[in-house]
């Protein structure tokens, strides 16, 4: 009896994720949602503890996975986290100054942050492992002629690719995967220790075992080609899809966020980590002070990531800028929507990106973004935007100053409104599926 080809969609990421969808989960969700309407599609997840692929169901959410009215109030988890941070800070402030200096060195803070992230990662693995050791559903039975699509963070599961590779060689199905970026491999200094090896090994097997790859930018495609060339891997066919950025579904927060006034701040969205290059923004605001240029307040939205202790300390304690820069974290999507809608403009000085969603989001909200000029960031809006090199504070300052002029900014916003067309997730799905159909 002949077997009708099946498209198998990997939902491992969504299954393991308990909270609000961030970038990659959002991509997985929207692509899976696109496929869920078809008859020839089935879903599976990888059970890490048992090293098997298990068939599952896709359950569409009733609202956008990246926005929720429930986000208006912080979740219990969020409240607990905030309380823990407040308590820790309170204790730190009550401790004698000499203790604080001795214990809370920037190096120790980085170490604590690093261990916190490792601990979180461990707990997440433990949670997954506990789930995976429980009862399982039927195994996913891949067959010749089928296509398996991996769209999530498969590098979190070191056995997934080798196991899938073994099955692919014996069962002869096709394997297509999404490539977000090669940054942990090609720019390891931008991440914490440990990720380089795991990520590089994963991407090596991805290239070696896939029939096709879909990159989220031309830059990521180029990086994948470079990676393959450097390791003498055959380069599989690589397509490109543009990520959706129709972010307007989140209702804006009623009233302002904190004490911010509409139109009186510049916004920068992205986790505080080395790669996002907040150090440049510190230099820009310092340089403005030196040159006697008055800049609006800078609002940085993002959680605290790895190896940024020194920069955060400077941002929070330098008398020249501490009242000019505000770090905001743990906010809801509706608050973020308010921040985007009411900012003067946004700035995105990242050193390297796979795509650069905050640039696209800013434009989708009709707001000018000033991004740095590397990697994928120039692909999002091309000549519509002006760019600066991520290590050139003076160039960044000059661009900000240029667009503080209200008529100049208004003219640019009008151009954005007429020329920038946000990409729908339906379009992303169409581009992805077109490649899947044509890759081999």
């Amino acid at each position, binding site marked *: 009896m002949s077997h009708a080809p099946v498209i198998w969609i990997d939902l491992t990421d969504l299954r393991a994720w308990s909270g609000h969808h961030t970038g990659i989960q959002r991509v997985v969700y929207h692509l899976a949602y696109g496929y869920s309407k078809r008859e020839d599609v089935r879903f599976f997840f990888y059970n890490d503890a048992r090293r098997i692929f298990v068939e599952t169901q896709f359950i569409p959410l009733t609202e956008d996975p990246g926005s929720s009215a429930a986000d208006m109030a912080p979740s219990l988890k969020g409240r607990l986290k905030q309380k823990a941070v407040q308590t820790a800070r309170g204790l730190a402030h009550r401790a004698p100054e000499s203790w604080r200096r001795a214990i809370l060195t920037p190096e120790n803070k980085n170490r604590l942050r690093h261990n916190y992230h490792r601990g979180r990662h461990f707990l997440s693995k433990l949670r997954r492992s506990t789930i995976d050791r429980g009862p399982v559903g039927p195994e996913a039975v891949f067959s010749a002629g089928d296509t398996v699509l991996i769209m999530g963070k498969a590098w979190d599961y070191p056995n997934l690719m*080798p196991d899938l*590779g*073994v099955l692919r*060689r014996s069962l002869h199905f096709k394997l297509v995967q999404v490539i977000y970026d090669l940054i942990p*491999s090609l720019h*390891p200094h931008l991440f914490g220790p440990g990720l*380089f*090896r795991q990520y*590089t*090994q994963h991407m*090596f*097997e991805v*290239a*070696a*075992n896939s029939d096709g790859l879909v990159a989220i930018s031309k830059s990521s495609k180029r990086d994948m080609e470079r*990676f*393959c060339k*450097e*390791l*003498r*891997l*055959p380069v599989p066919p690589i397509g490109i899809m543009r990520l959706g950025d129709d972010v307007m579904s989140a209702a804006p927060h009623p009233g302002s966020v904190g004490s911010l006034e509409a139109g009186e701040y510049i916004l920068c969205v992205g986790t505080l980590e080395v790669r996002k290059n907040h150090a440049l923004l510190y230099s820009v605001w310092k340089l403005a002070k030196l040159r006697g240029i008055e800049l609006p307040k800078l609002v940085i939205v993002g959680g605290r990531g790895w190896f940024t202790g020194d920069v955060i300390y400077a941002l929070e304690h330098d008398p020249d800028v501490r009242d000019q820069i505000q770090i905001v974290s743990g906010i809801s999507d509706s608050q973020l929507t308010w921040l985007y809608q009411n900012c003067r403009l946004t700035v995105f000085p990242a050193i390297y990106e796979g795509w650069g969603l905050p640039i696209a989001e800013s434009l989708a909200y009709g707001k000018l973004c000033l991004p740095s000029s590397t990697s994928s960031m120039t692909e999002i809006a091309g000549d519509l935007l002006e760019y600066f090199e991520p290590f050139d504070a003076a160039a960044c300052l000059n661009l900000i100053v240029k667009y503080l002029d209200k008529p100049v900014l208004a003219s640019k916003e009008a151009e954005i409104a007429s020329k920038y067309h946000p990409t729908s997730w339906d379009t992303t799905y169409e581009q992805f599926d077109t490649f899947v159909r044509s890759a081999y």
Partner: protein
Amino acid sequence: MIKKKILIITTYPIANAQHGGQKRTKAIYDAYKANFSEVKFMAVYYRGFYPVAGSLDVAVGEASARKIQQSPFTGDIIVSDAIYREPKVRRKVSSLLQGFRPDVIHIEQVYPYLGLKPLLKELGLKPKLIFGSQNVEYSMKEEMLLGLGVDPAVAKAAADQIEGLEHELAADCDLLAAVSTSDLNEHMKMGAVRSVLAPNGIELLPATAAASTYWQNYFEKHHISKKVIFVGSAHPPNWFGFEKMIGNRLGFLPPDTKLFLAGSISDYFSQGYTRERLEDATFWLRAVACGRLSDDSLAALLELCDVVVLPITEGGGSNLKTAEALLSGRKIVATNHAFRSYERYRDLPNLWVTDNPDQFRENLTKALAAPFIARTPEQQKSVEGVKWPNVMKDLVKEVSQL
């Protein structure tokens, strides 16, 4: 049995023979033992390199050991010098020479002659001398030292000293026994008069069922369909050749393929490929460090592998690994250098030879995919010629006539 007293002297023991030089010397010893009435073997050696030794072997003392630790790649010169200069070593060597009074001394590799020549003169002994050549040592040593980043002046001084010694022994010896025609010609030019070609050979024991089962289980457990093997000691030319012809970027090998590194060469890779580099992070996805395998385990791995690689680009002499590969009957991907003195086997099936690194890697992927072609009975018989007793026949004949 021919009545003759023969002493073989080297700078390494042959008890627990691991590297090519040891195996060759052991084969010479076995061939002499089988044909001559009295045969003794003595090594003057450094215990740090060779923890296992025979009863007549003499380890150098602390002073020489310290020199070797400072300059490990000229260790053969240092131990040879100790034969005459280090009192304890000199006493033991003298005692053996005077007690045994050999008719023939076979000096395997030129180095021991450095201390032996003045000692023989001092003792008034005039045995027949055989110069057992495994390489043209001076050029190989200079190349190796330069490759290791040694000061060129130091490398040149060492090479000059060895070249002088090779000239002396070539001129003084009664018989030159060389592993390859080109080495033989080179040493003849240095003054040797009588010579014999004694190529390297091999003894390949059949694998036991237990060893084969171990490897089959290993392959199954790790989902390995295709197996490539590289056998080598941690002798610098081995890793130079590997890095040049294969390299540490192994993405060209299919995902179901593993490259097994057998012998102490795998220690070099295990210790070396650990940095934060793409190739270091991925090398072990396709390579397996086997370390030093027992003869049985190695025989089983050779029997079960698909391709033997011989990425040899430098070093003189002929190569034991080549003989081993030929006798294993596996597909072979090699350089021309690896086939020095085995040129007569170049037309065998399942053999790919090139000196171009890109072509070498391409040959490896071709060999993995190519169907295996059986040898004809004539081809198989000719390959049997690489076994040690066969390759030693001419040497034994020449020595018997000394």
